């Protein structure tokens, strides 16, 4: 398998596993409360962290497939050359913004690590979470560069207006 395919499969698996864990954690928490009068301690904090990780694990995938919500109303009515320029310009901006997000999240991680900030109940340290989000944003930015290069070679299939089938 190509490394890109492998990475994409891995991220999909991680995001899917996290979603399933969120679902099961809720069910176990509810059952624990009613049957054993013992809710899962700090289920709420674990859910929060899993949600953040799901969101960012999906970011390279959504970016790579060009699935971010977009309005193509004006684009579609334009002559090809102008549309090509605007599409590439948008890809450049997306690349830069994702790189910027990675940098800001890295800064956040550094600050959280300096303070030793952790969740209130379970004491889960927050800096590693921020670093993970930063890394996933950085990967997304690299993916966006790859898309830009492909786009310049004219190798992209036309992007759908709303990308994913099952929003």
């Amino acid at each position, binding site marked *: 398998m190509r490394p890109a395919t492998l990475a994409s499969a891995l991220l999909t698996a991680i995001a899917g596993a996290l979603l399933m864990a969120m679902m099961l954690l809720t069910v176990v928490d509810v059952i624990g*409360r009613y049957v054993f*009068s*013992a*809710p899962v*301690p*700090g289920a*709420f*904090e674990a859910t929060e962290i899993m949600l953040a990780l799901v969101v960012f694990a999906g970011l390279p995938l959504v970016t790579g497939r060009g699935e971010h919500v977009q309005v193509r109303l004006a684009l579609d009515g334009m002559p090809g050359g102008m549309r090509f320029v605007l599409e590439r310009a948008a890809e450049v901006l997306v690349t830069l913004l994702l790189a910027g997000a990675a940098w800001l999240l890295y800064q956040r991680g550094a*600050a959280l690590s300096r*303070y*030793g*900030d*952790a969740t*209130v*109940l379970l004491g889960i340290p927050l800096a590693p979470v921020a670093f993970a989000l930063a890394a996933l944003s950085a990967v997304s930015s690299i993916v966006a560069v790859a898309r830009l290069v492909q786009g310049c070679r004219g190798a992209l299939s036309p992007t759908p207006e709303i990308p994913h089938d099952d929003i």
Partner: protein
Amino acid sequence: QTTLTVSNWLPPSHPIVKDIVIPWGEAVKEATDGRVTVEVMAAPIGKPPAQYDLIRDGAADIGYGVHGYTPNRFALTTIAELPFLSDSSETLSVAYQKVYDKYLAKANEHEGVKLLAVWTHGPGEIYTVKDPVKDVADLSGKKMRVGGGLANMVADKLGIVPVSAPSPQVYEILSNGVADGILFPPESVPFFKIDTVLKYGTEVPGGLYNTSFFMIMNEDTWNGLSDEDKKAIDGVSGVALAERAGKAWDAADAAGRKTMAEAGMTVTAADEAMVEELHGALAGIEAVFIDAAAAKGVDGVAALKMLHDEAGN
């Protein structure tokens, strides 16, 4: 003519906004002869735990927050979260600010900002949905919503099963039985509209726990003010602001108690036997503060003694 913006994450009807921040802003305006005005932002620019960093970095000029939301940053402010400190927010807040100035300030826990004041809310009490709490055994095994900070440790020592949920969700978790009760100051019960869900209250003399608040200003903003304005703002901040905040909480607590009575809640004071039990179960909890103080080179024992003396117990 300077306008200072206040980052605000509470609704405009909350006592912190309408009775503390806005009147303080008016006091600043008056003290500076109108040279400095204070403007509260209409919508939040970040979550409650983010407020400290936002102000330090200059996202707004002034902000307030809860030390317990980022517990690892503020070890010394646990002094004001201890149980049995005072029945009055005003007394405790003034005492706390004085102790802060004398003992805690030198540890520089509020690094990179100008600290305007610290204060506490009123005494944290016990409220339940189904059964009244008459002794410590009644608390054991109960699922109670606890906000965080030292209150978690209090809950732990009393055998409470802590349920954590963001405060806007307390209505939901109490009304559908996710939690059996809640540890809250009297003000918060009507504020979160749970006076219609809760049936019983048990008030603990001095409070079962408390919460420590800060109000801060961006350092560059502060340094940019004239010496005259700085002096004027200092005059209405510190002990004066802590006193203002404490008075506001006491009034809000009184109003809260009245609303609870009107809603038909049965609120009683813990009897002597229960108070004794609580003191027994929570004995030594102040070590959390004293140890933290020692680690930061602060005389915790002396600070705690001063707090008790100033608070009148």
